[in-house]
């Protein structure tokens, strides 16, 4: 589905998403020329249909986690249900899994500038240095969906390493967000 600003004859661009809230998603689009905004509101059936495609609205093309639909949507799931990031195993990657990582890195570019950092964090194999997260920073991290927390943590720690700090507080998190244009 695409949205067109009729007056400007320009494709509208996704600005933000909200929800699902009681099954409904709100997806905000804006015309890049005149600034007019519209919101697409989905009902619970439509939200579930999008969910079943295994794609993310507003993610800019970020790659879903392994068995994401099964882990996050199947009721009563055991085994992998609690594991946000299946790539925790110490077993060395195989040539095939490296190829899968490369395929992820080569995915079509998306709007989300954080995607690159996420992909890089996904593919990293070396250990990340120990950082100290303040309680407030941990609390803020806990607010985002659990299945991306691991990736976001790695990205923020990478930023912290770049700027030479070892304590991650709310300020560092905000700076990381600004750096990635979020």
């Amino acid at each position, binding site marked *: 589905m*695409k949205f067109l600003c009729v007056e400007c004859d320009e494709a509208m661009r996704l600005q933000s998403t909200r929800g699902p809230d009681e099954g409904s998603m709100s997806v905000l689009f804006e015309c890049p020329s005149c600034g007019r905004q519209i919101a697409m509101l989905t009902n619970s059936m439509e939200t579930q249909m999008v969910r079943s495609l295994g794609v993310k609205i507003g993610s800019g093309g970020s790659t879903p986690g392994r068995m994401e639909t099964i882990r996050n949507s199947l009721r009563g799931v055991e085994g992998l249900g609690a594991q946000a990031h299946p790539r925790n*195993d110490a077993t060395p990657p195989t040539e095939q899994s490296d190829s899968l990582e490369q395929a992820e890195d080569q995915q079509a570019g998306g*709007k989300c500038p954080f995607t690159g950092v996420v992909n890089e964090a996904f593919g990293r194999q070396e250990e990340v240095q120990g950082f100290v997260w303040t309680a407030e920073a941990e609390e803020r991290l806990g607010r985002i969906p659990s299945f991306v927390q691991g990736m976001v943590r790695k990205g923020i720690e990478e930023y912290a390493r770049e700027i030479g700090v070892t304590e991650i507080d709310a300020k560092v998190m905000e700076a990381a967000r600004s750096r990635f244009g979020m």
Partner: protein
Amino acid sequence: MKTYHDIVGDGGSNVVAQVAEQQRRMAIRLAPVSHIVAVMSGKGGVGKSSLSVNVATAFAMAGRKVGLLDADINGASIVKMTGVRREPEAAYGGVRPPTTAAGVRVMSIDLFLADDTPVTWDAATQKDAFTWRAMMEQAALREMVTDTEWGELDYLLIDLPPGTDRLPNLVDLLTRLSAAVVVTVPSQAAHHVVGKSIRMAREIMKAPRLGIVENMSRFVCPDCGNTHDLFHGDRADALAAQHGVPFLGKIPFDPRMAQLTDSGLNFIGEHPDSPTSEAIRKLTVRLEHLVEETSPVAQ
């Protein structure tokens, strides 16, 4: 005014790219798999899952690397029939499938659920779930194909649920399919549906490598060796000839196969000399000919 096709992209979600990425990941995952074979039947109750398990086991015992995917999301039975442990293991890049004693790598939705837990999907409401339930099942199937660390396989057998629509759904999902084996029993009702399955397969697969196998073809008494018909319908080899499809063989019914397979034990390993085990081994040879495009002739 611009039309849909005049606009590049979708404004920021890049859904088309995400779907293309799913296909690419699946292609990478399946690259080391030599042959993908769907085991299907238009009709339920013909012993398709049991046969899938035993064909996979026969292949493995003959030295082939085999995977078995339980594509029957709502009627999953392969975990129980193979006796694998319900402990899917996270691995780098995917989920490591458990293996049977014979070495068959198994993936099923049942691995993620406690015993007797039905498949239901989280949603804000289950009202009108019929509109999206099939799509969620297809997504789960896609993930089980793509996110399982199959590794190098000679054969990936996919046990489909009954129904003539299952093969086209699978063909839509997979990047490739080597062959489809249609399982039937010698009954008129089953043959009626098999005919539809063959027509559907031909329309969808264009140049299909199809084969028919007749399960429960007769009952061989394990004590005296006498044979008895279980059904009194037409023979499947005649059906195969009628449709111009290779006939892959007849599998006699052995109650021990049902008993051991239901218990997750290896029937072929326990009774290698039974007529049923012999017929299954012959089936694997003909199936190999089918996927390699040589002439599979059943006697």
